[in-house]
């Protein structure tokens, strides 16, 4: 469980997040949504300690996040940032293998190689495994970084807009895999999404931010209504149930 208490953050005197109180229960997929600039990435960076805490508190399973040593935290929580760099020329296979770093500290054994191979298969990267990061498409690179975090095998996985460069086949496959991880492997997943249809279709809970404030939080069934979502985005968002029993969201 991640408990966020009265969390506020400023950059250059400008408030980015104000007074966030939020509990992310263990297990399931939580979608973090909201307009651009709402503070979603900032919130994720504060939880993953890429930014240091200014005021408020974040606790992981009852332990203050600030008191957990970095190498310990890397065994519990993995993050994929919104912007993945491209400066280095690593092979995709090596990148995924670095996901095992927190466990192996550079001495992988058979089990680690097995995890890496299985991860490459899971994310459809086997054919690309010997390609360099700067010689694949943006979507393939993004999948490789998610695969690295997956290989890290942590209880928590925080993903910042991982669907950004993915085509619908891979986007759907990633969401299905995350859902499966949550159900079968009892992982807890927090994912920033900008496509409402994905959020409603795959998440268990939705957290909505706007202008640095927590607007809504709850089970998909209760918060995914036309009124609540229209208010969050200040845009008319309509919902329609199709003949096959699916809910579709219209906002274009």
């Amino acid at each position: 469980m991640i408990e966020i208490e009265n969390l506020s953050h400023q950059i250059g005197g400008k408030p980015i997040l104000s007074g966030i109180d939020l509990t992310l229960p263990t297990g399931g997929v939580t979608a973090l949504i909201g307009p651009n600039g709402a503070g979603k990435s900032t919130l994720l960076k504060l939880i993953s300690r890429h930014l240091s805490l200014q005021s408020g508190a974040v606790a992981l399973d009852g332990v203050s996040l600030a008191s957990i040593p970095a190498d310990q935290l890397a065994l519990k929580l993995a993050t994929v940032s919104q912007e993945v760099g491209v400066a280095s020329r690593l092979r995709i296979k090596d990148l995924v293998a670095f996901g095992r770093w927190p466990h192996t500290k550079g001495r992988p054994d058979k089990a680690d190689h097995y995890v890496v191979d299985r991860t490459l298969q899971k994310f459809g990267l086997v054919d690309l495994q010997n390609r360099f990061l700067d010689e694949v498409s943006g979507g393939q690179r993004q999948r490789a970084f998610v695969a690295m975090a997956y290989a890290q095998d942590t209880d928590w996985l925080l993903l910042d807009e991982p669907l950004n460069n993915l085509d619908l086949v891979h986007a759907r496959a990633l969401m299905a895999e995350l859902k499966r991880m949550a159900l079968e492997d009892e992982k807890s997943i927090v994912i920033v999404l900008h496509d409402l249809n994905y959020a409603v279709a795959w998440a268990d809970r939705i957290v909505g931010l706007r202008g640095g404030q927590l607007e809504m939080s709850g089970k998909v069934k209760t918060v995914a209504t036309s009124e609540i979502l229209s208010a969050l985005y200040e845009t008319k968002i309509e919902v329609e149930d199709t003949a096959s029993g699916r809910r579709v969201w219209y906002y274009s």
Partner: protein
Amino acid sequence: MPGSLVARPKRFYLWTVLLLLTLSGVSIFVGVGTLVFSGLFTNPEALSLLLISRLPRTLAIILTGASLAVSGVIMQLLVRNRFVEPSTTGTSEAAMLGLLAVTLLAPQWSIFSKMLVASGASLLGIFGFLMLIRRLPPEQPLIIPLVGLIYAGILGAAATFVAYQTDLIQYLWIWITGEFSGVLAGRYELLWLAGALALLAYVAADQFTVAGLGREASLSLGLNYTQVLTLGVVTVALVASLVIVTVGMLPFIGLVVPNIVSRLMGDNLRESLPVVAGLGAGFVLVSDIIGRLVRYPYEIPASTVFGIVGAAIFLWMLLGRRSHA
């Protein structure tokens, strides 16, 4: 660590070793005094020529080339830019300023203490550079080396000014021009320290590779990013100073070699660092041999020879770079 299932770097290792052995052989047997292999066992003068001059010279070249190339690649990974190395970031110029200061204020200090002062100064130099580039847009990879070159130019001009005012221009000239004609047994041993630092970098190769993925990815993997950054910066500053103090500056080695190896093998340092070191040594060996042969029996400094080739390659890299640069 990763990728150890595949034996793909073996081919590169083999070529690097062959290249180094050949070039070292040539370097040992080329020179003003004649040295033939068979003579080593019958002629005591030949043996002492080997031990006092030729072998130290060859070793000094190998240590210099290897450690410069290694510190270049470290800097490139930490700054996440392909075009930085000690001579394009003010590191070497800051070291020279430090050397000037200690030559003026405490000329009686040992060479080792002077080297430490130079290292301190070049650390400050790197720190200043890192501060300067903090706010530069990462999507404009050419701005960083341009700013670095201007920064290096300013520090270099300051050094020239001070040296001119204090009649130390000759010293400055010696530090700027890296060459190996003065290397004799007893005069190059500081370079072993540079070699040891390159070895230390190999021990921490995985850490540097992870750091090359950027701060956030490093933190997510639990890497102590600040510690790795500090280790890298100290290594680069020490190597730059050690080399300047013993043989003088050799620009572009740390730039050209890592870029070639990165093209061939990628940036996984656990695999590529031996080749980076070997190729760095190889390039300096070739430059030194050419410098010895072109105007035989006179010598052209290795840094001049490589400076011409290196500057051309650097320009070609800048202009011909593709989107990933």
